[in-house]
């Protein structure tokens, strides 16, 4: 078990990186606490897997240091770091039985036969694989195979951390949920450091205590699912988390009020104060959930047109045309909505202001 630290780590796949865009990972300073369950969330190609491979030692970063419990391991290969990694596709030793697969990492570390036997049975018990121990690993279903990959990490009781690289990609949807719960159980039971890479926000939010959002080689925010939803620190987080993502409108600040194409929207004093010194172009952001829509004129309501309503059973997604800009609102079932003329309210306490993509606070 280990606390993993990134000390200004940057990585480029090019031999002579010159400009910032040459880097797949731009200077990252981050700490993964011992025993934490982290999800690394971001779109495809944002550097999640690269980051994971730097942690495990499959890649050596171009710049910076990786520390395990304060000890520099940057130059150490994966087997010396005592890390486990579960890949997107199940990686098994086909010719071995399940038992032999689980025992393999221990045998390579020259552990005693009796000790190995005990560990393998313990881990098989945790993963519900006891009944399969004597089977050939090659003949099993994808979810069992992925459990074996995970088991090869768990058998080492001193494993520093277990890294997951989109491990549920090839698993049937109804088993995904089951495996995710299993992972959570294991985390609670063994208190291991788990880092889980995914581009599926549902997976990230249900699995992790802390979600790390990556965007174009940078960590843009680390937080609990609630923090990410309520206070996206980067425009990308607002857009990526939540379905549909946050609404953004370009705006101009004037005292305690912003103007969006001449329409006046009032702000809370602290929001406005934080924005006074901002230099870049301002944008207003608001979650679809917090937009209020009414088909009759209301106080502070701004005129708009409802273009489309999608009823999803437990809520409705309403597409609104507001001064030629499209906004989405997420309304509870009991609030009536109709196409045509409407009034939208931007609740001041829910409005966020962004400058150059970053939250002003």
């Amino acid at each position, binding site marked *: 078990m280990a606390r993993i630290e990134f000390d200004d780590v940057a990585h480029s796949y090019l031999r002579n990186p010159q400009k910032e865009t040459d880097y797949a990972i731009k200077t990252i300073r981050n700490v993964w606490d011992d025993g934490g369950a982290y999800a690394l969330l971001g779109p495809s190609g944002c550097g999640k897997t690269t980051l994971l491979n730097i942690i*495990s030692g*499959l890649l050596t970063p171009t710049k910076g240091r990786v520390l395990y419990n304060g000890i520099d391991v940057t130059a150490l*290969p*994966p*087997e010396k770091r005592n*890390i*486990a*990694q579960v*890949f*997107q*596709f199940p*990686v098994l*030793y*086909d*010719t*071995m039985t399940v038992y032999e697969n689980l025992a*393999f*990492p221990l045998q*390579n*570390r020259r552990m005693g036969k009796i000790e190995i036997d005990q560990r393998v049975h313990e881990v098989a018990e945790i993963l519900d694989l006891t009944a399969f121990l*004597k*089977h*050939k690993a*090659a*003949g099993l279903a994808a979810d069992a195979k992925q459990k074996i*990959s995970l088991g*090869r990490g768990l058998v080492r009781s001193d494993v520093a951390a277990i890294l997951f690289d989109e491990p549920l990609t090839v698993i049937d949807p109804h088993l995904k949920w089951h495996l995710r719960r299993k992972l959570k159980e294991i985390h609670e039971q063994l208190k291991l450091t788990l880092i889980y890479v995914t581009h599926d926000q549902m997976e990230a939010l249900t699995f992790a205590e802390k979600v790390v959002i990556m965007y174009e080689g940078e960590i843009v925010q680390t937080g609990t699912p609630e923090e990410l939803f309520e206070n996206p620190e980067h425009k990308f987080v607002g857009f990526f988390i939540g379905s549909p993502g946050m609404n953004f409108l370009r705006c101009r600040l004037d005292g305690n009020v912003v103007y969006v194409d001449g329409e006046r929207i009032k702000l809370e004093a602290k929001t406005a104060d934080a924005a006074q010194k901002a230099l870049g172009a301002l944008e207003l952001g608001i979650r679809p959930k917090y937009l209020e829509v009414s088909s009759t004129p209301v106080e502070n309501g701004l005129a708009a047109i409802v273009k489309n309503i999608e009823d999803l059973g437990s809520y409705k997604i309403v597409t609104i045309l507001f001064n030629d800009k499209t906004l989405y609102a997420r309304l509870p079932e009991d609030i009536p909505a109709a196409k045509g003329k409407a009034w939208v309210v931007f609740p001041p306490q829910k409005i966020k202001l962004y400058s150059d993509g970053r939250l002003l606070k």
Partner: protein
Amino acid sequence: MNKWENNRAWLLTIPVLIIVAFSAIIPLMTVVNYSVQDIFGPGQRIFVGTEMFRSVLHDYRLRDALWRQFLFSGLVLLIEMPLGVLIALAMPKKGWSVSLALVVLALPLLIPWNTIGTIWMIFTRPDIGLFGATINNVLGIPFDHTASPIDAWITLMLMEVWHWTPLVALLAYAGLRAIPDVYYQAAKIDGASPWATFRYIQLPKMRGVLTIALLLRFMDSFLIYAEPFVLTGGGPGNSTTFLSIYLVKLAVGQFDLGTAAAFSLIYFLIVEVLCFLFYQALQNVGKGANP
């Protein structure tokens, strides 16, 4: 829905049937025809049933040739399979050197078979051959493939290994390249030694291509004709007379078509049965039915 009643589409297979008939079925049936009759001339023939087969099976020269053939194929497989895999493991994995290695490796495969025999005949001649002369005159070891059976076998094996190991190596290399990187990453993380990586990842993943390599090498070595015919002509004595060389002696040399035909059919059956057995055995390796 009504089933389509028009079966005229079957007519489209006629060209293929004709080609297969003329290239395989009719020649094969001719051989069967020769094997059960004793033919003296046009219109003069007697049906002899299995007599030819019986005489072939009792021919000690044929049995000697058969054991020689098994020894040859066995040695070929024992040397070429491991050597080919070793070469494939040692080959570069990226960069311009890959193309270079592939071209160099493929060269022996591109040379016509009897040219190979000629190359090695000259190469190993004790008087003027680079190899033969060096061994005889520089190292002082007497070596003559035309006089000593052992030397003839050594020369043949060298030629065969030089000629065909590249095929095994190329197939094994293709198999190795097809293994996804994550397997190596997982092995690293599990702390596997290079030997364990080979034994539990590379070898099982190469099973398919190695099966093909083994079958091809077995068939080709069991049917070998041109190279030993050019190099040693089956000699000295009968020491390198393999089945096909003996068969040609029977059919062309002695014009004993009936015996040669019966012999061909037996030869054909041996190859067929052994290939089938090899294939079945390799299919079952490592699969191991689950209880």
